[in-house]
């Protein structure tokens, strides 16, 4: 049997080499994982990149990003469980943080992190904190709609009068967070009804920027998105928002929902200290200043931190009170799947 075993061994060796060689070539990020932290990042890549660079510059700790969307990475963390390679999880919205927290995967945060964020921007249990915030808006075509023609409430968009006239990005975590707030504020029946009407009325887009671009191009009259897409585009060339104006629903309407972006440290992380240090940096002066001066245009949430002066102050938005830890992503995706939106 010698030739058999020999050739079998050579085939096996060849296969191993073929599979291992590229793995070795590509293992530079994997090596970085050993002497730094891995961040599962659902926040805008540019923002987290700026945070990571600032943090690395100050502490020398390397940061490797895995980019994805809120609930994708949240569900991924739940699947990975204790074996997750992630040290830190950053989201755009709260529901995915709740998802991971309900699976018991977050480590309690240290007081030095928690004390940097006021109570209304973090859940009371202290297993994750707010790192930034964003407001729901109705971005509308100002050449078509006059202020008195704007919807008074998010719920008005279920009216047949709005059929085919408004857009949203239903597969995005941002819109799903808005629905989760609606669910908390108005209950399941009202939310399911609204989603059903939405399916009949709205025009789907992939991504909030695309939805705003469509408003600008006159394809729809308005879109339910977050505020910073407008400011970001205005700061660049403004070519996708020339005809766009923002309508804030205010009056504690579900459409005035202010969504908290969250950050947490995974309990399974082998780099607890570095991971906590990263969150401390983001919620501290360095990280919050990037929100104020950078091109993200998200609201700063740190104690005493100021947001970009171009934004409508957070305090003037009359947002409804929603307990961030009550937001349920699973219920929302189920409801939206049932409404045929996903």
């Amino acid at each position, binding site marked *: *049997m010698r*030739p*058999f075993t*020999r*050739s*079998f061994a050579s*085939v096996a060796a*060849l*296969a191993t080499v073929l*599979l291992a*060689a*590229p*793995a070795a070539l*590509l*293992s530079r*990020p*994997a090596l*970085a*994982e050993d002497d730094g932290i*891995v961040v599962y990042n659902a926040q*805008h*890549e540019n923002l987290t990149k700026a945070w990571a660079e600032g943090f690395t510059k100050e502490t020398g700790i390397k940061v*490797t*990003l*895995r980019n*994805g*969307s809120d*609930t*994708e*990475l*949240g*569900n*991924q963390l*739940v*699947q*990975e469980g204790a*074996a997750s*390679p992630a040290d830190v999880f950053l989201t755009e919205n709260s529901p995915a943080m709740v998802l991971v927290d309900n699976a018991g995967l977050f480590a309690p945060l240290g007081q030095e992190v928690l004390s940097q964020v006021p109570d209304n921007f973090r859940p009371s249990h202290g297993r994750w904190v707010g790192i930034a915030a964003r407001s729901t808006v109705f971005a509308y075509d100002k050449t078509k709609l006059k202020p008195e023609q704007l919807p008074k409430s998010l719920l008005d968009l279920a009216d047949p009068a709005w059929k085919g006239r408004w857009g949203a990005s239903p*597969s*995005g*975590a941002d819109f*799903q967070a808005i629905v989760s707030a609606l669910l908390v504020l108005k209950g399941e029946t009202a939310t399911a009804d609204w989603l059903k009407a939405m399916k009949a009325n709205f025009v*789907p*887009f*992939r*991504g909030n*920027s*695309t939805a705003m*671009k*469509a408003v600008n*191009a006159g394809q729809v009259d308005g879109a339910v998105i977050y505020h910073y897409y407008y400011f970001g585009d205005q700061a660049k060339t403004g070519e*996708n928002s020339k005809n766009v104006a923002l309508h804030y629903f205010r009056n504690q309407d579900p459409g005035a929902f202010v969504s908290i972006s969250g950050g947490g440290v995974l309990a399974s992380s082998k780099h607890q200290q570095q991971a906590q240090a990263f969150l401390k940096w983001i919620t501290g002066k360095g990280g919050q200043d990037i929100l104020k001066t950078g091109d993200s245009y998200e609201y700063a949430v740190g104690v005493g931190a100021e947001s970009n002066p171009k934004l409508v102050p957070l305090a003037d938005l009359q947002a409804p009170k929603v307990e961030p830890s009550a937001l349920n*992503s699973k219920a929302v*995706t189920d409801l*939206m*799947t*049932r409404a*045929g*939106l*996903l």
Partner: protein
Amino acid sequence: MTQVSIERRPGAPVFPTGFRWRRRSFLPLMAGAAVLVALAALLPLGFVLWVTVQTGWETASALIFRPRVGELLVNTVLLVVLTVPLCAALAVALAWLTERSDLPGARIWSWLAVAPLAVPAFVHSYAWISLVPGLNGLFAAVLVSTIAYSPLLYLPVSAALRRLDPGLEDAAASLGEPPGRVFLRVVLPQLRLALCGGALLVGLHLLAEYGLFAMIRFDTFTTAIIDQFQSTYNGPAANMMAGVLVVCCLSLLWLDALIRGRTRYARIGPGAARQPRLTRLGRMTLPCLLLPIGFAALSLGVPLLTLGQWLAAGGAAIWKLDEIGPALWQTAVFAIAGGAVTTAAAIPMAWLSVRRPGRLQRVLEACNYVVGSLPGVVVALALVTITVRVALPLYQTAATVLLAYLVMFLPRALIGLRASVAQAPVELEQAAASLGRSPGRALWSVTIRLAAPGAAAGMALVALGIANELTATQMLAPNGTRTLATAFWSYSGEIDYAAAAPYALLMILISLPLTWLLYVQSKRSAGR
């Protein structure tokens, strides 16, 4: 032909007594390897079945039989039913003009009809959406995918047209058939195999493509699966839709087998076929020129124009070399490694199908083709769940990505390899064995070396596929991975079209030589 020298090893018996036994012992090894590869390829298919069973019929049927799935089915079927015939008509017209008429500059037009393949499908879409921002829906989907995919039909149809024996047409004409009817009744039926193969390829691409349709807001099963994946990771709804998508792919394969039939297409009769006489276009030359010019303008002009605009608008600022360099490097490593692994994995199958054809071999080979027709999103979804649940050490490793590439692109490697193994005489392999080489070394030093050109072509095709692959890479890649395609996608997702432009340009530049290779090969196979 490559020279192969076989030296007798000192000390080896001239007529090894175990010779026959050794040759037999090699068969189980190759068969074993082929079975292993086929099993690996079957993983995603088995996974879809397993998940459906696990989910339970009640939940599964609630997720499968819902209006949204119906909508997606209508969209997907309409897309295939409209696009495939359009691509076929366009391909036949272009092929006839470039192969059978005296169209001025036929060779250039022929190359230009293939060249759009170098532009990744989602870059076509990016170009169109830049030109006509409001473009969306079924019409847009049919337009852009016809432009992006008709070269896949042009290649086989033009090659077949070139090889046709004009004698048959002459016979029909001498029996009084007008030229139009000769084309319909004699030429077109002979193109059936090429049309079927190409149409199948286009159909499968339509089912699998994500980026193209996501950008122009047309929902198919693949885009809906990704939406679900982004909301729930590998939730049951995503898996059930993947099941429906698999059924769609299998139906296409079945339809192809049905239409293909068992008619004989080979030429009988002594001597060589004569070169077909080119049809004089005469006064029709100018109008006929409009077709290739129009196609080139839409399929190459539009991408180049808009890409140029974005590159000019972005200026030097978009060339962030510290980002582009690593992305290029990672793409290259994935493409080359994936090409090598896939080609190596195809060797046992190719060897078996030439040297030891049989029932087992046919079943195994069919498995590879069926699985190769599955969209990247299905393969990736299966591998994500399998690695995270049972094979955790492989989770988020380059090895898993390469396995996905292997499963997806194995047929590409197999086709080229099989043809060139068939051209390597089995006697040389036997002679090497009789001179004392072990079967593995005999295979390596004779057959593989002789098959190298075919293997290289197959490898190039696989590498081309990998360089432009988006969905599986995104879902499976190790932390921190950024290829040209994923970087392009993340920039264009934020509608930073200028920053995405360099990545699009690089993908096109990488794909151009490979597309050229494909073009030259199809010319050569037709004896030119």
